[in-house]
């Protein structure tokens, strides 16, 4: 028997004006898996991430995390519930240092009232210390430990990508959604990214959903792949099954070999 899915999306429909971006899309994500969403440009992959995180309004459908329906919750509440995402175009906080970026990621599990911050109470200092340690730990995890005090704006592109990952995992998410994390990375960097995503799953116990165009990366690290085409589910299966699926090959991969 398959375990209860960590994320369960049913009949997700999203419309932008008269355009239907997603039509009755379903997605199950097993806990502890790396699940990839692939599809041609405009298939609705990023829109689906938006619908899951609450950043895109859905016309209908439901999103449930660990059996609890969260369809009605706003984006920040879903993040607090454990769904954290990264963005296709970098969204690093350029007005902060590297470590402050990651500490911002801790927002949902650093707890003290604002008054405690204004007055610098012992509780504030204790929690900030814990938050800093956690952030440094996560920075070391993605290999940016040496750059903690550098202004984030000064990092190279690949480093900003890693920083975004560190910020995301600093939130201790149960589900991490990555939107084209390999975009703009060279081959060596992409390979390192693949290893890092595996470690996020294996060492941190975070379930990962990956939207990605880089087929090498998708095929090597995914447990399961869901194919979207024109806003609809096209296929679902292991990398091997997807590569052999004639419909997928026709719709997405073209007639050439992979």
């Amino acid at each position, binding site marked *: 028997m398959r375990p209860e899915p960590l994320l369960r999306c049913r009949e997700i429909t999203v419309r932008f004006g008269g355009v239907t971006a997603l039509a009755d899309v379903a997605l199950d994500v097993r806990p502890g898996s790396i699940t990839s969403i692939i599809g041609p440009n405009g298939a609705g992959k990023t829109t689906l991430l938006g619908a899951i995180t609450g950043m895109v309004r859905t016309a209908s459908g439901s999103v449930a995390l660990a059996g609890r329906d969260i369809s009605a919750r706003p984006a920040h509440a879903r993040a607090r519930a454990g769904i954290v995402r990264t963005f296709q175009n970098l969204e690093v906080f350029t007005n902060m240092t590297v*470590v402050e970026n990651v500490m911002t990621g801790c927002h949902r599990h650093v707890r003290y009232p604002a008054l405690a911050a204004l007055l610098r109470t012992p509780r504030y200092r204790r929690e*900030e210390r814990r938050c800093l340690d956690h952030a440094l730990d996560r920075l070391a995890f993605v290999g940016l430990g040496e750059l903690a005090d550098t202004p984030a704006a000064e990092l190279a592109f690949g480093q900003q990508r890693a920083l975004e990952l560190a*910020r995301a995992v600093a939130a201790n998410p149960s589900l991490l959604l990555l939107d084209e994390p390999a975009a703009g990375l060279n081959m060596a960097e992409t390979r390192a990214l693949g290893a890092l995503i595996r470690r996020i799953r294996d060492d941190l116990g975070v379930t990962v959903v990956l939207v990605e165009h880089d087929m090498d990366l998708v095929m090597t690290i995914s447990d399961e792949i869901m194919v979207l085409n024109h806003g609809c589910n096209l296929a679902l299966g292991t990398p091997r099954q997807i590569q052999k699926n004639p419909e997928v090959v026709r719709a997405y991969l073209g007639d050439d070999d992979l």
Partner: protein
Amino acid sequence: MTAGRGAGNLAALAGFAALVAAAPWLLPNDYYLSTLILAFLNAMIVIGLNLLLGYAGQISLGHGAFYGLAAYTTAVLTAAHGWPVGAGCAAGVALTAAVAYLISIPTLKLAGNSLAMATLGFGLIVHIVFNEAIAITGGPSGFVGIPRLALFGRVFESDLEYYFLVGGVLVLLAWAALNLIDSRVGRAMRAIHTSERAAEAVGIDITGAKRFIFVLSAAYAGLAGVLYAHYLCFVAPSSFGFHFSVTLIVMVVLGGMASVWGAVAGAVFLTVLPEFLRAFEDVETLLYGAILVLCVVFVPQGIAGGASRLGRALLARLGAARRPHAP
């Protein structure tokens, strides 16, 4: 040292406190003391406004009105209704914060510049009320007979006493602002400024964070307002108009966005500058404008940004000078 701004902040605060304490003995006469008191009151408002504008990226065109609302509230309560000064001050600050909260409920849900528009309208309305509700506010000629500040049975009679009180409060407010900036709330503010999407994605309640910082910055203005009323013992609508709200924003920008010390520098500079320009009667306004233009052209990051760039340049030169001696 990682995130070790705490120690640097404390050193800067101690330095500033020492400067504040020493200033009265460096000034030639008492007139300058009263100018400095007004400069410090402005600095309190500008620190709050900089939290909102410089850190969280939200514009308020109504901070002059918040300042005035608090001043008038304590003025009316203490002078006309016989409230103790301390209670009047508390009521002034509380009312200002409550009004800011009410304004934030409808406006912060909307995107774009709705806060700027709402606070602009609020400021104009408050100014009209100050002028027209003559029975309560005394109208355009102002409200007289406000008692001097008295706390715990102690009346702050002399300007020097008042100066130390205001200086002390300013140091405390700067300390609180610095603490806030290095906290989860402060990081949330700065995150919202750069990317609301990314802020949301890590679980920051954007509306809630904006509301908190707006109310807090209004409370800063309110605290300055009650201290103003009980210092001059006289308030008039002309001190709290739209022009003053804009001047406060100029102080933030000129001092340096996203810098507490920049806020203090900008407020003190722009409060003291007109006093010095008074000697040039005919071209006073012209000079004031010219100085502002020069500042924007030559130190676009404000006084704080310019100072830190200068500091870095000096350090670099120092390093370059030292290098040849290295083995």
